């Protein structure tokens, strides 16, 4: 019963947080200078005054601000994210169409970075000041210090001019019909460069974190006890130390998803990956505010969910913490 109540409270909390994000951004956009109808007019090449008035009423822009906000929130709670100013299509549809691409990219990148980074970090922790450890530190620092869009562009130069074996743009090849194994392989092939580029950013974090975390854990009491008990180094490292060392890494993993759209925007731009990041960027430039708000909302929901998941995961891994 207690658990259920706590869960409910958490759910409420999460929902309120998401709502707050949406409200803030809605207000910000409405209050800022600039008239969305004029932007729409510009993108249409000019409109008649009659049409201008029509659009204004259609998008509810002639209502007072609190009314607009209330209407918007009401719609959101019913799952209606409004219509894109630019495409005049439902925002939820536009987002749904782009989510898989971004999800694929981000999940793959994080997976690659996590596995590779943790492995490197653990390796480095065995001889914390040895040459391998220092090399790994420098390598991972390099991946982090180079701007992700620049790394991507370096790869584009490599694979577009020098060694054209990988596609540097889009998610599908032109002739793909989107069906069957061939299409899946096609997407996988297109995914290689963007995934690798995005993973470079997270790679640094995970290897540093897991190295530091492992070192800290390895110096702690119960590890000394385990060693004193005569357990093999291998056992100590992987069975005891790693589990605990993973805790901060898992926390970071959860926080990472706060960057679902952020890191993806830059990589998606460089590789013209048709994801949410691209949609967000294009919509901002077009002043397509309903779509921007929709993406912000979606992002917030994902982050809140991931936070909850991370909390739960944390509790699972760490035997010392129980609900």
């Amino acid at each position, binding site marked *: 019963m207690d658990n259920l109540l706590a869960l409910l409270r958490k759910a409420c909390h999460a929902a309120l947080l998401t709502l707050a994000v949406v409200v*803030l951004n809605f207000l910000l956009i409405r209050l*800022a200078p600039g008239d969305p109808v004029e932007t729409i007019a510009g993108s249409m090449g000019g409109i008649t005054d009659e049409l201008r008035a029509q659009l204004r009423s259609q998008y509810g822009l002639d209502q007072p601000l609190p009314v607009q906000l209330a209407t918007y929130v009401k719609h959101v709670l019913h799952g209606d994210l409004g219509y894109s100013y630019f495409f005049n299509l439902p925002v939820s549809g536009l987002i749904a169409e782009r989510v898989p691409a971004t999800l694929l990219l981000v999940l793959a990148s994080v997976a690659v970075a996590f596995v590779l980074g943790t492995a490197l970090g653990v390796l480095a922790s065995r001889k914390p000041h040895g040459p391998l450890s220092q090399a790994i530190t420098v390598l991972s620092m390099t991946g982090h210090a180079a701007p992700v869009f620049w790394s991507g*562009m370096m790869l584009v130069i490599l694979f577009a001019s020098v060694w054209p074996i990988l596609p540097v743009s889009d998610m599908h090849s032109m002739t793909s019909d989107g069906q069957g194994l061939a299409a899946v392989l096609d997407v996988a092939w297109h995914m290689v460069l963007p995934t690798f580029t995005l993973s470079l950013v997270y790679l640094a974090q995970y290897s540093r974190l897991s190295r530091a975390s492992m070192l800290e854990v390895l110096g702690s009491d119960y590890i000394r006890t385990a060693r004193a008990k005569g357990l093999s180094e291998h056992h100590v490292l992987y069975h005891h130390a790693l589990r605990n060392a993973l805790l901060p890494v898992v926390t970071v993993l959860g926080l990472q998803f706060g960057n679902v759209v952020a890191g993806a925007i830059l990589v998606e731009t460089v590789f013209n990956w048709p994801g949410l990041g691209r949609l967000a960027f294009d919509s*901002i*430039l077009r002043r397509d505010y309903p779509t921007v708000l929709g993406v912000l909302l979606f992002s917030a929901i994902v982050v809140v969910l991931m936070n909850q998941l991370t909390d739960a995961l944390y509790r699972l891994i760490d035997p010392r913490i129980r609900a």
Partner: protein
Amino acid sequence: MSSPVSTAPAAAPVAAPAAVPHPARDAWRMFLRSRAALAGTLLLACIVAVALFGPMVYDADPFAIVAAPQTAPGDPDAWLGTDQLGRDVLAGLVYGGRASLAVGVVAAVLSALIGLTAGALAGYYGGGVDEALTRVMEFFQVLPALLFAMVLVTLFSPSLTTISLAIGITSWTATARLTRAEFMRLRDLDFVRAERAIGAGNARIIWRVILPNALPPLVVSGTMAIGSAILFEAGLSFLGLGDPNRMSWGLMIGSARPYLLTCWWAVVFPGLAIFASVLSISLIGDGLNDALNPKLRER
């Protein structure tokens, strides 16, 4: 650096220093012993020097056309080549540093100020204040940083000020969390209780007593924040949302992107500049971390 784990029995665990001057000299010595940290400092010093004094030495307008478009590096009129417009890439590097580094520092300072204040108040007072501030922290953590910054910059038109503000506003939660944790750890310790006993006010305790002791991890975090801010600004400029009237490294990369395959030098060199800056800051940060972190000092 420090001795490996398995030798020398651990010294008595380092307790929080009790109203004793910080072992700054030890920390400093440790920092100096790290080759990586020294290399980073040297690199950063060079970069800052070029950014500050370069324009005085190499007097050229980064926006001026000096040679034919897309001239390869090695040309006497433009040693690092020209971009798609015929502008000097070297001039761009020299002048671009100011914008990139300035925004990085200002944004980091801003986020540090906000984060410190929020974290200190939340960690020290606890209770309702903590609740409220934690909610705010959560809110800003949930907000997608780059996206929100893009919206801010587009709504209020891009200038170095707007960009610094946007980055600062979206990046303070990490510092806040750290500060809050430190304050919660330190506020109930003996030396703080002692101060309260002798009648010190809350303000004094927060700013004069606890904060100095909480500084080590905050200094490291602040240093890293500068690197992140530089990358953040580069990203915004790359996307075309930087200050278009100021030359910055991100802007150079973004505007040369359509000519990437024929004019790679206009993209590679500014990227290397950003990379070098952030790398040097990371090295320094790491060095500081090792020097100031008492737990590691044991080894």
